[in-house]
């Protein structure tokens, strides 16, 4: 069948021209709990600079063991405390005049001042992020204007309970924003076409408060997202389950560090269950023997690293709940109206 080309007046030009104004990552850094580092990588008294949430921070652990993460620049005269500063007892000490700050950012000592500036008695004067340490991971709560946490980290039996095992971890860099990475969780059609899965699995997504529950493939993958920075996904095959715990970090608006660890029940050494659990984990990441489809490592990055974000995507009836996901995710952005309009 042939048809005449439509006359120009019939064309929706906005559809054709929108790509010119698209951005790769129009998103602010979303609010939430984020992985900072593994507990064993930060010893008491240690201090270093880290790049996260689109800026540099000073990460330290007090002699007593509390982790702290603050703006680098001393409120006094602006010295970078991650260059020459040190941990003194429970405080971070600036190298310039030895002003000291605790892990909440309160000034605890000015060694040569007689009168403490009144604001130091009223509030923190150095921006410090709320910190939590659980499951061997250090987390920081990020909010663009320093609001307190609105939810707590969940319990994760695969990391906290007896009878679980697995030391496998991974870390991958993606040149995109955290929302774009997470969106693949509800985009089930891409599993068939990008990952070469045998079909498009059915997906059930439920959203409540900061939590998103996903069931992909009628129980094959059952996952829960706790805000933008923590996901727990259980994969089940032949009655054997393995768990992926994923904790992606927003480094800049266009750069994310994906971190994961993989756990399973402590099945007997040499058992069929143990072999299946290992295969499930291999398959989560990349290729696995006997599986035709590919894990994220080999196929997702080429898309993430080059795509642009379409705020008004052209979806079809076979697509997953992408827009519901975006509506849920929007709660993590605290930004002005013009920024929110782009996400």
């Amino acid at each position, binding site marked *: 069948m042939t048809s005449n080309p439509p006359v120009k007046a019939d064309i929706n030009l906005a559809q054709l021209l929108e790509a010119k104004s698209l951005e790769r990552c129009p998103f602010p850094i979303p609010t939430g709990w984020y992985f900072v580092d593994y507990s064993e990588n930060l010893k008491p008294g240690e201090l270093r600079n880290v790049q996260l949430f689109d800026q540099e921070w000073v990460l330290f652990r007090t002699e007593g063991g509390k982790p702290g993460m603050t703006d680098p620049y001393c409120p006094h005269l602006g010295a970078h405390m991650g260059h020459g500063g040190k941990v003194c007892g429970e405080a971070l000490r600036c190298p310039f005049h030895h002003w000291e700050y605790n892990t909440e950012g309160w000034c605890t000592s000015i060694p040569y001042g*007689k*009168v403490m*500036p*009144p*604001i130091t008695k009223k509030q923190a004067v150095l921006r410090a992020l709320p910190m939590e340490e659980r499951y061997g991971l250090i987390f920081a709560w990020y909010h663009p204007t320093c609001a307190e946490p609105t939810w707590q980290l969940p319990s994760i039996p695969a990391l906290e309970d007896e009878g679980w095992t697995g030391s496998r971890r991974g870390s991958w860099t993606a040149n995109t924003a955290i929302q774009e990475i997470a969106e693949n969780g509800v985009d089930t059609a891409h599993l068939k076409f990008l990952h070469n899965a045998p079909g498009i699995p059915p997906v059930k997504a439920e959203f409540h408060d900061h939590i998103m529950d996903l069931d992909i493939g009628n129980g094959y993958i059952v996952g829960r997202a706790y805000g933008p920075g923590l996901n727990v996904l259980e994969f089940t095959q032949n009655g054997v389950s393995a768990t992926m715990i994923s904790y992606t970090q927003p480094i800049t608006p266009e750069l994310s560090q994906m971190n994961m660890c993989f756990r399973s029940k402590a099945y007997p050494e040499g058992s069929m269950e143990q072999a299946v659990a290992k295969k499930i984990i291999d398959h989560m990441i990349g290729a696995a023997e006997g599986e035709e489809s590919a894990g994220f490592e080999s196929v997702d990055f080429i898309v993430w690293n080059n795509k642009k974000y379409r705020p008004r995507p052209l979806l079809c009836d076979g697509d997953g709940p992408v827009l519901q996901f975006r509506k849920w995710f929007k709660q993590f952005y605290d930004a002005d109206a013009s920024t929110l309009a782009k996400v």
Partner: protein
Amino acid sequence: MASISVTTRDGAKLQIKASPAIPLMEFLRDGSAGVEGICGGELSCGTCHIYIDAGGESLPPRSEGEQAMLDAIADFVEVRPTSRLSCQVFVDESTPDMQVTVGPVA
């Protein structure tokens, strides 16, 4: 320009000229009246403390921040009902003849 009569810590008398929109602290500091004004008006040092001996009636009351700073220096020096931080005091031609005494060092 308003003219302020100043008594320094050692009892010397000075006349300081002050113009509107600039805190009195700057004229006292730059006029060698013995006021330091270290923090520049951020209410964090208390080094521009003065007593207003006369002519303070038209000044607005202390802000919360000024009060907090005066409370903080009260552990070291005498704070009186006439105490002000001169970084918070603005005078103009309509201000009646003002007489101030520079506060003691904390």
